[in-house]
């Protein structure tokens, strides 16, 4: 089961566009079925199997529910496995990232809670546009370099989103 494709575990065909709410519902259903508690009295072999299935299911869910992780996984299963740690040279995009980080720093220095709202809006819009672009090109072998570039950009924006959430928490305190 560990070797089964993440999508197959959810009876889905590989695709970038996913209904995340439906995925979450499906995950909870499936997770119940392999929950270790249900196998407390079962033979050891079955217990171990349930544990493995539960871990595989969790890994699949964590991968599919995150846009950058799902994107990287799709590239991998379509024959373009790319390393996790690499250096990206994407000057225009990185310059914009740096500007966004500077803005975020300013919001933090000024404890500008209201300023976070429009910042988040822009981030969301940028993420949506990256995801549209990726959905339109990942399964075209001629465009896999572009697809990887878009996936890397998603990774940066995902991280930026985490920073925004952390800042919100700090300012809420």
């Amino acid at each position, binding site marked *: 089961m560990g070797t089964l494709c993440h999508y197959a575990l959810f009876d889905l065909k590989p695709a970038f566009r996913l209904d995340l709410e439906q995925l979450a519902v499906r995950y909870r259903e499936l997770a119940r079925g392999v929950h270790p508690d249900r196998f407390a009295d079962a033979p050891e072999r079955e217990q171990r199997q349930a544990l493995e299935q539960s871990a595989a299911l969790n890994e699949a869910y964590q991968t599919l529910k995150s846009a950058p992780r799902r994107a990287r996984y799709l590239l991998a299963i379509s024959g373009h496995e790319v390393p996790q740690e690499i*250096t990206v040279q994407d000057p225009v995009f990185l310059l914009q990232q740096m500007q966004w980080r500077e803005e975020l720093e300013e919001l933090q220095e000024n404890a500008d809670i209201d300023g976070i709202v429009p910042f988040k809006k822009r981030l969301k819009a940028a993420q949506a546009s990256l995801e549209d672009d990726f959905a339109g090109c990942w399964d075209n072998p001629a465009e896999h370099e572009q697809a990887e570039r878009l996936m890397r950009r998603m990774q940066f924006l995902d*991280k930026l989103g985490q920073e925004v959430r952390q800042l919100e928490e700090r300012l809420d305190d």
Partner: protein
Amino acid sequence: MAYSEKVIDHYENPRNVGKLDKNDPTVGTGMVGAPACGDVMQLQIKVNDLGVIEDAKFKTYGCGSAIASSSLATEWMKGKTIDEAETIKNTQLAEELALPPVKIHCSVLAEDAIKAAVRDYRQKKGLL
């Protein structure tokens, strides 16, 4: 994770933080990023007629090890020729900062930033 004393020193007192004028023909800019951790690093050098790096600045958004690696890189580059600076290896940065294995990629990012800055300078000067 515990940072080494040298990383903490560079993190708390980073050397050469700032920016140089990108449009200055004697300035080379290297902009690199590590997508998995979201780190963004800009390293800039100002080079004189003899090919010696007179000034170096960096701006890094990332973890302590990434900041320390870029800070140390600018320190080492100053006073070197661009040819010498290009030979700085990530392993030297990592050793000096006593980076743990999981943070080696931060020193790789700094080495890549050095190379990108030198390449940008050469491109501007028509040396490539």
